[in-house]
């Protein structure tokens, strides 16, 4: 049973990636072009026009956008997964967790590929590898757990409240600005910066930038708290899907 679940997730992921590649002319290249275009846009506005970029703004932005792109896609894709597969859920008895998992896995695989390129670009730009890179797997795992938890929670609710899909993009745009993707926490004035410092995504991004751009180890106490929160979030998401699963076959497609 367990093994069958993994086989199903694995092969569906392969099918998803394969289908995605043939749906557009540029295929795989879009995974690189999209963050590059975003980076150009933000660099133009914040650095060139407004002049609020600060030193090292380009690599700062690059790390933020590449990671955010993954984080956001995981939430959106996983969030829509069950709702989009209701027709299938009506026809065959299948563990519904498969659907969000497939998207989390395929987005993670795409990100892995882009992330390796990011590391290479940073190295070429004068940010060589350091011992602190050893903390990368933990930081990325925390981000995955946070995205997975949010995505699963959305996935669980979306079939019951399909109206959610109209607000999810806007919510994520707000979250992007609250997560310091395009500006640094140090540039935010006093009372707001304290509030923003509660956002685990922002803290993880700052830690990630510290590791990649300054070779700085993350703050372990902070990382410990965030790991706990991330695991909790993932657990809530899983429980929500399992709890609501019996209701999906009864919903209108």
């Amino acid at each position, binding site marked *: 049973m367990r093994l069958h679940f993994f086989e199903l997730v694995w092969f569906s992921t392969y*099918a998803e990636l*394969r289908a995605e590649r043939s749906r557009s002319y540029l295929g795989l290249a879009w995974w690189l072009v999209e963050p590059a275009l975003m980076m150009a846009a933000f660099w133009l506005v914040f650095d060139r026009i407004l002049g609020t970029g600060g030193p090292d703004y380009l690599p700062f932005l690059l790390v933020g956008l590449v990671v955010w792109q993954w984080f956001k896609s995981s939430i959106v894709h996983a969030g829509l997964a069950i709702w989009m597969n209701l027709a299938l859920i009506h026809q065959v008895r299948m563990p519904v967790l498969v659907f969000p998992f497939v998207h989390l896995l395929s987005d993670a695989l795409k990100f892995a590929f882009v992330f390796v390129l990011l590391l290479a670009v940073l190295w070429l730009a004068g940010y060589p590898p350091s011992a602190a890179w050893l903390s990368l797997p933990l930081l990325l795992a925390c981000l995955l757990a946070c995205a997975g938890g949010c995505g699963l929670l959305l996935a669980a609710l979306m079939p019951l409240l399909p109206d959610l899909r109209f607000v999810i993009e806007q919510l994520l745009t707000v979250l992007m600005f609250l997560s310091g993707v395009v500006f640094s926490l140090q540039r935010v004035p006093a009372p707001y910066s304290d509030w923003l410092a509660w956002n685990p995504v922002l803290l993880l991004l700052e830690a990630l930038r510290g590791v990649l751009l300054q070779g700085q180890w993350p703050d372990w106490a902070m990382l410990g708290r965030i790991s706990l929160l991330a695991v909790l979030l993932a657990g809530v998401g899983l429980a929500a899907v399992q709890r609501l699963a019996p209701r999906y*076959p009864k919903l209108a497609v």
Partner: protein
Amino acid sequence: MDSVISLQQVGVAFHAQRRLRSAPYWALEDVSLELARGQRLGVVGRNGAGKSTLLRVLAGILQPDRGRLRRADVSCQLLSLSLGFVPHLSGRDNAVLCGLRLGLRRREIDAQLAAICDYAELGDFFEQPVTSYSNGMILRLGFAVAIQVQPDVLLLDELLAVGDAAFQQKSSLAINERIHAGTTVVLVSHDEDKIADLCDSVLWMEQGRSVLYGDCDTVLKAYRAAAR
């Protein structure tokens, strides 16, 4: 008697509209049923009697909202032809995906791929994306995969005849073979002659309730009398 699935006063409710506090609609009100291993049960009733809902409960897709359902450790398959083929994937990849969705293990499917290609009469098209398939080819592939599953309980919503005349004969032959091979079968159909021919017992349903349950002659006679 070796019971595989038993239902006791089972009911299933749907919410017809996406509104807050809309009243539930009971597609199944009160159905009791004892399905024995090797039994071939026919289900008759007018449209909207809840026959298809009953099949989905037996398949384990729907869970009852009231009543009791007991299921022995058996696999059930509701025979269905299109489990969402992915357009840009080859026939082979779609067959694997479809088989996994039907609960087969990867090595079981791999072992049957040649047979599936053969049965669906796809030839070289098996390696082509299914976007290049005709409707008939897609149906044949769907049937070829579905018939490879060997469930303990086979659930049929009308006898599916697929494709051109020759393949129709081949597919109904495969289903007949399966029915006579000792598999437990539940067949929903409007074709009373087929039911009399293939089944050993019949359940008559009306408006979500079981009206009469027994051997073919008795139930079908009563059903026909009521229909007049």
